[in-house]
């Protein structure tokens, strides 16, 4: 259990002098805040800003606090903010276990055991040595989630992670992802177009203009 809190304080993003968005919110442990808005409203830029790789052409103000500590001056790799993209983005040159191992802290103990247990937990026991290129879309999404969880983040960002799955799979994957994130007590921000995503997330919904 993580019990972290993610706060966005007076965050404003602008591009060439024109303001894109402003947001001020607090996401508690296990809560999922949904951010909705049309394309071009800056949803993805908001996630890039929090994760630490906003392109230098953007101007930003405000602060991002994890458990009260401002992380804005940290490099992306030191922020401990997990991110799920639209695509699972499993590294194609590593096996499933290689992908998971890459995410784990170097001093983590009994990596292999943690990996087998994790795979078992998401219904993919024995997938350790599989080539990620041979997985189905749903399987790859689940591995991507497990990889994120094994990296031990303090907060999670979801960038329309279900938009490329078909309806049936979408339902299942969404349930699994939300359950796991709630169970680990991670504060989460979800960016989506899909009303159903927002409803199932069950948290506060913010709409950008």
């Amino acid at each position, binding site marked *: 259990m993580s019990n972290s809190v993610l706060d966005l304080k007076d965050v404003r993003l602008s591009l060439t002098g024109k303001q894109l968005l402003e947001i001020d919110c607090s996401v508690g442990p296990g809560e999922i805040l949904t951010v909705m808005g049309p394309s071009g409203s800056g949803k993805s830029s908001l996630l890039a800003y929090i994760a630490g790789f906003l392109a230098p052409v953007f101007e930003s103000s405000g602060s991002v606090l994890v458990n009260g500590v401002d992380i804005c001056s940290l490099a992306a790799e030191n922020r401990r903010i997990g991110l799920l993209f639209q695509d699972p*983005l499993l*590294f194609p040159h590593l096996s499933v276990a290689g992908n998971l191992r890459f995410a784990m802290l170097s001093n983590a103990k009994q990596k292999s055991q943690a990996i087998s247990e994790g795979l078992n937990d998401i219904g993919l026991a024995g997938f350790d040595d599989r080539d*990620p290129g041979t997985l189905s879309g749903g399987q790859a999404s689940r591995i991507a989630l497990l990889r994120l969880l094994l990296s031990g983040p303090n907060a999670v960002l979801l960038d329309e992670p279900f938009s490329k799955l078909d309806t049936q799979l979408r339902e299942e994957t969404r349930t699994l992802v939300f359950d796991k994130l709630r169970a680990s007590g991670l504060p989460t921000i979800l960016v989506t177009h899909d009303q159903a995503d927002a409803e199932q997330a069950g948290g506060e919904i913010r709409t950008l203009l």
Partner: protein
Amino acid sequence: MLRWASHSLIFLLAAPILLGTFIASLPAFGYFPPLGSSDFSVEAWRKLFDVPGLTRSVLISLISGVLTPLISLTLVFLYLASATGSKLDLWIRRLVSPLLSFPHAAAAFGLAFLIAPSGLFSRIISSGLTGWERPPDILIVNDTWGLSLLFGLIVKEVPFLLLMSLAALPQLQPRYRIEVARTLGYRPTIAWLKVIAPSLYPLVRLPVIAVIVFASATVDVALILGPTLPPTLSVRVLSWFNDPDLNLRFLAAAGSLLQLVVSLIAVAIWLVLEKLVGLLWRFWLAAGNRNTGESLAFVIGRGAMPTVLMVIAGSLLALLTNAFAGPWRFPSAAPSSWTIQHWANSLSDLSAPLFNTVLISVSSTLLALILVAATLESERQSGKGKSTVMWLLYLPLLIPQIVFLFGIIVLTEFAGWQANLSLVIFGHLLFVLPYVFLSFSEAYRQLDPRWTQVASTLGASQLKSFWQIRIPLLLAPILTALAIGMAISISLFLPTQLLGAGRITTITTEAVALTSGASRNLISVWAIVQLSLPIVGFMMALFIPKFIWRNRSGMIDTR
């Protein structure tokens, strides 16, 4: 650290070349303390202009400098206009990269053995057509006006300009433009020439200028195919430079400066031609002809590329038959018997130059790759996009080799350094760098940025994601860049010859040295060894990723 790498890349390229060009001019004006001369004078220039046949040497260099790009580019453009999208085109696109790796010297030897009066071509037609009993008494190879030199350069530069054009084309969205023109009633070939060619030319202008400089100043191709009485300016400069009489150094220096001027004049003539053609094109565009001239353009365009391919294939065949030929009387199309004697005889002589060739090409290419990768990674991390000073990368291709190499030698002589292997490797690095950069930068910049982003959200440092994610994902382009760099290094003659002071021999320098006096059979053996080395490199670049990623189906898409 990374910044340092990108700055040193620029410095490594620009400093020796600009400084070398400047230093080369000192002995030309009489200043050369190592030979005990520290007074400025124009003596060397007076001597240079008294050299018999100088005007002709200069003229031949100028002619090949202007005609090579003119004819090659015309053929490439007509080909693209008439064949884009055809079956022939698919086939040729696959062949163009391997063709490019055919070293200049080997290609020139092959061509010489194909078209010489007693060459393969004349032997084949003699049997039925001409009834020649003896080789015709005409000067084809080494002809006085450098026509065979011009022919050899065109055969070599057409694939180069084709590859450069193919790389630039996609950003023009040619299919869409052609469709628009065709709906306006233009025939496809005319449409290409009217709506694609004017936008494509500016994108291939720099490579074209590199071709002008190369063609006006080449040494190895001119030694093999060029005229001998008198030879081209570049060849004469090299012979003055190599002369045991050290006083000829001053003449060589003045000659190399003259070479720079000649290459610049060739470029200037080109720029004037460019203006004229641009003007004509505007009239032609405005005239609105929709099909006039299409059939001529079509025939030349479709005919050119297969002809070039057949000449290259014929050259290869000429090398292969000569390398294994036993006794071979003139009119017969094939030798009366085959032998491996020529190979057995060369084996002991091959080993040392082969070792040097591999050592020099591997080390210069690896150094180049490290510098290029560090530069690209620093560019990526700074997030500022392409650096504007990158045109400096083309410097080694835009200034005649003999000029700045000569300057670098003068510099080392001032410093009292001896010619050695590291100097040769450094010289190769100058020429390998631009090609490694050109080949690797596209792949590096196009790699999906999300791979690194995912890695950092998982807590991986920049260093860790560089080594564990970017490098393995880019393995195939890395190996291709290495193969290209090594192919360039293997084909280099002048840097090895000059910076190694003739003491460091590679397959290429030895093969070119055989020009005077050795048998065709022996030369063919060396030329085949020279052209096989790059092929080995390209094969490895193709098969190593296939082997390593045999269980990683996703690695086929990311290439």
